[in-house]
């Protein structure tokens, strides 16, 4: 499929789901009320609901989904492994731990800014650790194993911090951090996270040529003029910024970065740089769809969105492992 066509189709799908996300919620608003509420000013209930509750939720679903999709695509291109994604290499988990550490300990007061500050700190530490490891070994396997270890360690530390926090009820919030949710997010969260995520997208886009060259392996890529150190920095900072910001406001949402690039790759010519934009759009589509579903599937209340992405993603991951002859990087 031609890239422009693919991107337009995904873009339209994304817009449709964005609108659908705005139309779903416990308050039953008909279409005219919703539209009027969205664009009118003032203190009308419909307007407040649309502008302060549903709009931020839809924007975050779009932005976070895009971030997770594009981060998964760039990591798979860089690590030359179709099983890589930000959750697996431990960036999401460390970001959650960082956010929890800074916020619940009261070190930064209880301002909302503590969250992305902590999350970025956690993501950067994860990244530095992984860079140090990659410099020593260079092997993809080592990187992924380190990520698995980092994820487990971070989850344990997150539970520990929540248990020890001054607020006796903080440990109940672990569900949010481990399974993610977009419930009742506000425009404050949007302004907090979206600029950081956009910066991440930019850095990732700049690494496009490098990940194409890496299709030939690291040595050939270096001989084609790719600065391996600079590329590593771009990719790692790009994913840290994006995934860190996303985790800070929505908790850990997994598997989007794994499933989406894999589904979309056969529709492209498989050049890693060509996959970046459609994977981002596809990620937005997936997350918006999941976020709509979690609000519809229960009669009252809603599921954590990470539950749904895990329900889709984990079996998919198993299927990938079993059918490992498909979509491998290198067929010997």
């Amino acid at each position, binding site marked *: 499929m031609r890239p422009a066509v693919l991107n337009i189709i995904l873009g339209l799908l994304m817009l449709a789901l964005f609108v659908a996300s705005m139309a779903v919620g416990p308050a039953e608003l008909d279409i005219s009320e919703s539209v009027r509420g969205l664009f009118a000013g003032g203190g009308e209930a419909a307007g407040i609901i649309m502008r302060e509750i549903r709009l931020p939720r839809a924007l975050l679903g779009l932005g976070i989904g895009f971030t997770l999709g594009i981060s998964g695509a760039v990591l798979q291109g860089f690590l030359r492994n179709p099983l890589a994604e930000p959750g697996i290499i431990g960036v999401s988990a460390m970001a959650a731990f960082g956010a929890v550490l800074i916020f619940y300990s009261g070190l930064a007061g209880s301002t909302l800014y503590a969250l992305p500050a902590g999350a970025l700190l956690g993501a950067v530490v994860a990244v530095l650790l992984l860079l140090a490891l990659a410099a020593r070994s260079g092997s993809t396997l080592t990187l992924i194993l380190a990520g698995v270890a980092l994820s487990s360690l971070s989850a344990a530390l997150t539970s520990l911090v929540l248990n020890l926090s001054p607020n006796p009820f903080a440990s109940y919030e672990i569900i949010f951090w481990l399974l993610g949710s977009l419930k009742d997010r506000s425009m404050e969260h949007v302004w907090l996270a979206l600029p950081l995520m956009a910066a991440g997208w930019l850095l990732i886009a700049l690494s496009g040529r490098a990940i194409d*060259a890496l299709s030939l392996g690291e*040595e*050939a890529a270096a001989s*084609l*003029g*790719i600065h391996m150190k600079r590329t590593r920095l771009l990719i790692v900072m790009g994913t840290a910024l994006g995934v860190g910001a996303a985790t800070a406001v929505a908790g850990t949402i997994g598997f989007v970065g794994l499933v989406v690039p894999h589904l979309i790759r056969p529709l492209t*010519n498989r050049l890693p740089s060509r996959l970046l934009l459609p994977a981002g759009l596809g990620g937005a589509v997936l997350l918006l769809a999941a976020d709509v579903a979690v609000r519809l599937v229960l009669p009252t209340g809603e599921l954590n969105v990470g539950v749904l992405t895990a329900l889709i993603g984990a079996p998919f991951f198993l299927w990938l492992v079993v059918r490992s002859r498909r979509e491998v990087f290198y067929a010997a």
Partner: protein
Amino acid sequence: MRLEVENLDVALSGRQVLRGIAMALAAGEVVGLLGPNGAGKSTLMRALAGLVAASGRMRLDGEDLPSLSPAARARLLAYLPQARIVGWRLSVRDLVRLGRLPWRRFGVSPTEADEKIVEDALALMDIAGLAGRPATELSGGEQARVLIARAVAQATPALIADEPASGLDPAHQIMMMQALRRLAEEGRTILVSLHDLTLAARWCDRVVMLKEGQVAAEGSPGEVMTPERLADIYGVTAHFARDKEGLILAPTGLTIAR
């Protein structure tokens, strides 16, 4: 372009792999790099490609190679690694087109000129018919030709290839050497490492023989590839023959000293 190496030393993991390497390649030459496994051929090529740290001097047309940025070096010197990696089920044409990366500005699509160079490279390596197929579905030998085509498409004055002929069938081995000769006639400087002694003898203008990290011999095939040399460097006995094209060398057995 003239490729000059002086006093090149490379140490890896504390072990001295190359010692005092010196050689000079002129434009329009195909130079064969020979030597047993572990002699340091790949390391020498990696050093020229800037992939391992080396002390000593490496100059291309007078320019000091290590001081060039990777992008600038990529326009002067194409490197074909020994390991054959083709990723992601990319099509043959897309893979070969990757060779144009050093010449393309960021975000700009390949131009008509780029496409022409890619087509020429495909034709040169006799894979034009495979252009649309996923490279991962091809045989090992076909994949090897795809990767050479990528290096050819890079259109650099110098081309360094690490054992490009291994795994190719006899016809395609000869076609590959013919292609390299043609590139040399266009003015490129070619350094190719080979294990097939006959190929080296018949197709290279000069050969450089490495033994244990040092240059053991250097000169035209006729001068250098003597039975004594072969016994000394490879530890083999060989049957020598000649036809009007050149030498024919067939290793026949191991020397008694082994």
